[in-house]
């Protein structure tokens, strides 16, 4: 039997492991051994086959069919029939079969079909630790092209033509930043890759660094060539050990092959890259704080001017870009700025990677052209809301972003389109919320995050956010007064207006946007002392609503404190003296009868 498949990629990411902790490599190796084709098929460890919700996933290559591994026997069956069929999808399996569930081909699934892969093109197709595989997939071709056939000015011109804007959130035109850095005639200059991805729920950069580290490196080398730098730094948070390992391997092999170090590709251009692990301070994602951190100082944003392009790391001209920005660069150089510009919208060209999380069915990484509307991302790609809950809000841009409602779902996602509605695209985290999320609680969560992560330098961010947090907690605990909303709003605006860096300026966004779009929920907390989403414990009475109760008794079964008295066919009664307010019953009740 000669299989048409020559490699099987399997995902090693944490998301897949959390779903099902099996040693996929061992299972695959065993199954292939049994079939006698172990030596014909490569097993490739990869990161995120972007169907995290189905994990652990494997992918047959070439072909790209993704399967979910359920059991050992199932896997053997799958492999056998898959290989026997010559690698083509089989007819749907008989229902009783224990064979692993096959996932339809990419082209047939909205989750894949509606995506456009530029940055994530190599994801799952190559082994990130193998420079040869990257080279086979046109890797370092852009570098060769730039070094041999383009001047630095031409590289910058190409970047400007592409219209690429920084993917870290602020959306500064990359070409202009490079041009700015090139302008200063002070050496050494530095190129910094910002891999300090700190937004809760965001993992775009991690996946890029883990699955395609060479693309990031190549982008950095190209940047170094364009701006006239000879040193690069990758700042990665230490919480990303796999990314650190992959980048380390990539740098070492790239040096070996002559893409890094002295005399890159024999052209006389010197460039080398070092990795700087960050200690996990959110504020170190801010560019000047990040540079202080690399210098070994306390990570605190500094005042501008001068801009980093003039006086950045060690006081030298420095060009700092985000991981995703750099990963875009090789394709732009290779395919041309015009090609890149043809994707996306006029002001925001190219694609954007989002990490889609929360209450959607398909959680995972999503790469779509700029300008795709939220509804497509959430309902077509994300598959809509999980369970029988209803869509309530979508939070974009991490702790600095805002919450949007159903009526904003038609909005295209670009750098500028969401501003009027009070949100921003940010670095690309999308958290979808259903009606079991209390928006006051969501605001409190993000505010707490910013209170903890503020560097503590400037007054509004350090103290103003804390005052906001106090007000939110007061509301959540049922002590809210009608004047609190006005105070909260005023303080939020004050913090946004007078804070120093992006962290403080954007930190009130979750509060401001929820106040704007979900004011009724705040009002319910304050005036009626009621949490409509049944989240805020202090506002719950733990009473059974007789009209809604279907007398199923599930509440009594899940109660860990034996506080629910239920007789078959009767409405349950909660003994509030015994109740420990753990909310198990509320979560269990499918009819929302307990309040």
């Amino acid at each position, binding site marked *: 039997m000669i299989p048409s498949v020559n490699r099987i990629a399997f995902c090693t990411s944490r998301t897949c492991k959390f779903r099902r902790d099996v040693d996929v490599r061992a299972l695959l190796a065993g199954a292939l051994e049994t079939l006698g084709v172990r030596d014909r098929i490569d097993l490739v460890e990869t990161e995120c086959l972007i169907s995290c919700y189905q994990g652990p996933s494997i992918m047959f290559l070439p072909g790209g069919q993704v399967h979910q591994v359920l059991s050992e026997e199932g896997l053997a069956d799958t492999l056998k029939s898959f290989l026997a069929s010559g690698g083509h999808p089989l007819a749907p399996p008989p229902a009783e079969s224990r064979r692993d569930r096959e996932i339809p081909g990419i082209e047939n699934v909205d989750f894949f079909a509606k995506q456009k892969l530029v940055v994530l093109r190599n994801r799952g197709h190559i082994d990130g630790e193998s420079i040869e595989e990257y080279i086979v997939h046109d890797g370092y071709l852009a570098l060769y092209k730039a070094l041999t056939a383009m001047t630095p000015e031409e590289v910058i011109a190409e970047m400007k033509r592409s219209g690429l804007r920084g993917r870290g959130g602020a959306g500064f035109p990359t070409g202009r930043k490079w041009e700015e850095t090139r302008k200063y005639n002070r050496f050494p200059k530095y190129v910094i890759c910002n891999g300090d991805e700190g937004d809760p729920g965001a993992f775009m950069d991690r996946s890029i660094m883990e699955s395609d580290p060479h693309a990031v490196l190549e982008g950095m080398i190209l940047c170094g060539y364009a701006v006239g730098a000879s040193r690069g730094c990758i700042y990665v948070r230490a919480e990303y050990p796999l990314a650190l390992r992959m980048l380390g391997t990539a740098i070492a092999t790239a040096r070996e092959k002559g893409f890094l170090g002295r005399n890159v590709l024999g052209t006389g251009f010197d460039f080398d890259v070092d990795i700087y692990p960050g200690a996990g301070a959110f504020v170190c994602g801010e560019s000047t704080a990040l540079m202080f951190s690399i210098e070994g100082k306390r990570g605190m944003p500094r*005042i501008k001017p001068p801009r980093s392009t003039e006086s950045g790391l060690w006081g030298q001209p420095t060009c700092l870009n985000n991981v995703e920005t750099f990963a875009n660069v090789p394709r732009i150089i290779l395919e041309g700025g015009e090609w890149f510009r043809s994707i996306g919208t006029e002001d925001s060209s190219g694609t954007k990677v989002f990490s889609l999380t929360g209450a959607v069915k398909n959680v995972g990484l999503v790469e779509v052209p700029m300008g795709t509307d939220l509804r497509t991302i959430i309902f077509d790609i994300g598959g809509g809301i999980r369970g029988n809950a209803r869509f309530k809000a979508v939070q974009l841009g991490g702790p600095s972003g805002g919450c949007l409602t159903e009526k904003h779902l038609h909005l295209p996602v670009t750098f500028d389109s969401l501003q009027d509605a009070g949100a921003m695209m940010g670095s690309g985290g999308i958290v979808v919320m259903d009606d079991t999320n209390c928006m006051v609680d969501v605001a409190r969560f993000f505010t707490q995050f910013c209170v903890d992560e503020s560097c503590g*330098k*400037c*007054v*509004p961010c*350090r103290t103003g956010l804390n005052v906001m947090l106090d007000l939110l907690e007061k509301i959540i605990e049922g002590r809210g007064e009608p004047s609190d909303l006005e105070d909260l709003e005023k303080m939020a605006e*004050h913090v946004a*207006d*007078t804070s120093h860096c992006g962290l403080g300026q954007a930190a009130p966004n979750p509060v401001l946007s929820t106040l704007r779009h979900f004011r009724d929920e705040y009002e319910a907390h304050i005036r009626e002392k009621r949490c409509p989403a049944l989240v805020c414990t202090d506002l719950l009475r733990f009473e059974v609503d007789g009209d809604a109760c279907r007398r199923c008794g599930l509440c009594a079964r899940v109660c860990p404190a034996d506080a629910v008295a239920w007789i078959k066919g009767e409405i349950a009664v909660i003994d509030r003296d015994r109740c420990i307010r753990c909310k198990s019953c509320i979560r269990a009740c499918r009819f929302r009868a307990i309040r």
Partner: protein
Amino acid sequence: MEKALITLRINEREVSVPGGSTILDAAGKAGVFIPTLCHDKRVAPYGACRLCVVEDRRKPGALTPSCFTPARDGMDIVTDSERVLEAVRTQLRLILADHPPDCPVCDKAGECTLQDLVNRYGVSGVPLPATRTPGAADRAAPLIERDMSRCVLCGLCVRICGELQGRGELDFVHRGHRVQVGTDGGRPLDCDFCGLCVSACPVGALNDRLYGNRTRVWKLEKRQAFCTHCGLICPAEFHLEKGRIRRVVPEKGDDGVKGLLCVRGSFGWRAFENAARPARPRVRRGKTQVEVSWNEAVKYAAGKLRNFLAARGGGSLALLTADHLTTEEALSCRSLFLDRIHSGVGSLRAGGYRRILSVLDGENGGSFPGGEDRRDPWEADILLVLGGGAVEHHPVLKPLVNRFLKSPWKELAVVSSWPDDLSGRADLSLVVPPERFDEFLAGLRKALSGERNGPPPDTGPLFVDTERLARLIGLLESGRNMTVLVVPDLFGDGGERARMAAFLKDRARAVLPLGGGLNSRGAVLDAGLVPAGPAADGAALLEAMEDGRIRGLWLLGEDPLESLPGGDRVRAALEKLELLVCQGPYETAAAALAHAVLPSALPLEKSGTVRSLTGVERTLHPLLSPFGEARPDLEILEDLRAALGEAAGENAPEFPEWNTDPGAVVPGPPDRPSSVPAEESPKDLPGGEGFPCTLVPVPSIFGDGPLSLRSPDLLELRRGLRVLMNVDDLEDNRFGEREPVSVRTPFGSAPAEAGRAPGVEKGTALLAHVTGDPAGLSLIRPGTAAVQAVIERRRP
């Protein structure tokens, strides 16, 4: 380089400022007040308090922090719109939420920036629920109290300490709302105690402990005067209450920029309150001294002097001055002692400085730049320091050098005989062994004067890393704008480094000798009180006293027992003297042996002119009333002159009955055999358990001058004699930090405390805080830059 002017409008007022100015600068020029809490011109803008926000009419809606935003042409700034005022008020409310309302017990009340702003902007009531309660103040360190519950986190102390003082003792700890200013692991402050952080703190978080809880700010009378601890004579603001000093703070210039002070200026003022001073003149009657009236005392001293001169001649007398004299007093000294009596003249404390200055002056043909030719030494591109201990002699140089180095393209090169503070922060540092230092400089001079294309001169061994030496020579030959600072050793001879500096004079924009006391420069250059005779040098003086060439000493504020190394030899020599007069502000050890004790006034108790080491002339006005019957030295000297029968006029006759020939020394009766051999050769050190090392006496940052040694607070910081060594030596010999040890040299032994100093070579130890310590002084001899020693653990 003139920068183009920028014109903008601030509150409808048009104002022009040079390019690079901030909006805040422009507002200052326009006379518009903008509130700030974290701004201090001494350090770079920071932008933390966000009180300085303004609105630009061209960008409605946005608030701009003015303290660091550059002013641009055509800006239309509004500082008093309702939006700006509301933002400032909210900011103040936020700051108050994190600040305990403990103003009644806060020393800062009345001069607290926060309090003033709250009042000015009408923030009243309790605006937000307070999160901080008054905390316990940290008084673990001397002199500076820290109450972090009051801290508003403006970061000024952190920046002053790190950026300006270069110390970095204070920094932020924690993050977010828990952020605090603290030290490593929360240990007590252990720094230079320059007090600049206290001077910068806008609230009551950092307090002067000498001032705390003793008075209220509105009772103080603020007087502009000068710090008189060293020769830099920094301007300072003295705060007095009922004629007594309560504290000293850096002077605030006309432009509102605060100045700089060091530990001596900020915390050394209790020397003026030291009661160990003679209140009335005393003369010897038999074996005891008795208090007499001024009239009697002057008559007695004059009579003694006349008899001495008649018997021994002027050449047998030496005048030692501690440089607390004003130029007028020094002139009086010169005309009496140098011009009339032809006595020797010298100084113990400022001896090194004076020798360097006179060599420089001599090589210059007596035209060493005085006050009239004063070029700003900090305008240079290169700062070359010859000799160790520049900032130890003058701690205020530390922030000045740091400020100098902050500008681009500035370089600091230090050639030192020991790893002092500056060599640690120099771009190029050469540490030459102390006993080889002069030899090295002579060789370097030879190398530099060699023909450029000729054969390399034979300079002999140069004792340093050749690569660094090459860089140094490159720097000296680069033709770049250079300032040379020349620093004498504590007790060594500075002649060679003065010759080096004189050699470099043509290449340098300024050559400044350091290490002098108050008015050392004025005394030599303005008053001509130049070193003369054997008294010019400590070693020669001691020898001359021992062999009978010097038989009389007139001490003006000096005390050989306090600042002339030699231990018992010095005492024995003093006991032999036929004339010993102690004229000075303080009670000294030598005064007990004196024939007459004439109490004189401290610099802050008299008026007169003094000149700083950088050549700036300062006028002293009496700030305090003199202690007891103490009188200014000028009055005493004039009375003395009158009593000697000499008219004050220029054409006064020579003293006919005196032998004033400087060469003639009338031999007295043969010397009694001295208990200490005059010729003392260092014996081999007995071996033993201890740590054998080269001991280098170094100046103390807490001051070696007579004033500093009388300040109880500076003495507390000195903590007595210390031997500082390499951390490996410390560990190899199992000396603990601050462990009591005993130091032995061929000359004597003394108890000391072991300590650590960065950069010290293995096998070398620094001997700190030696002046004023009789046991410490017995370890060394004048003129020696280093001595062999053994350090042992002291057994209880």
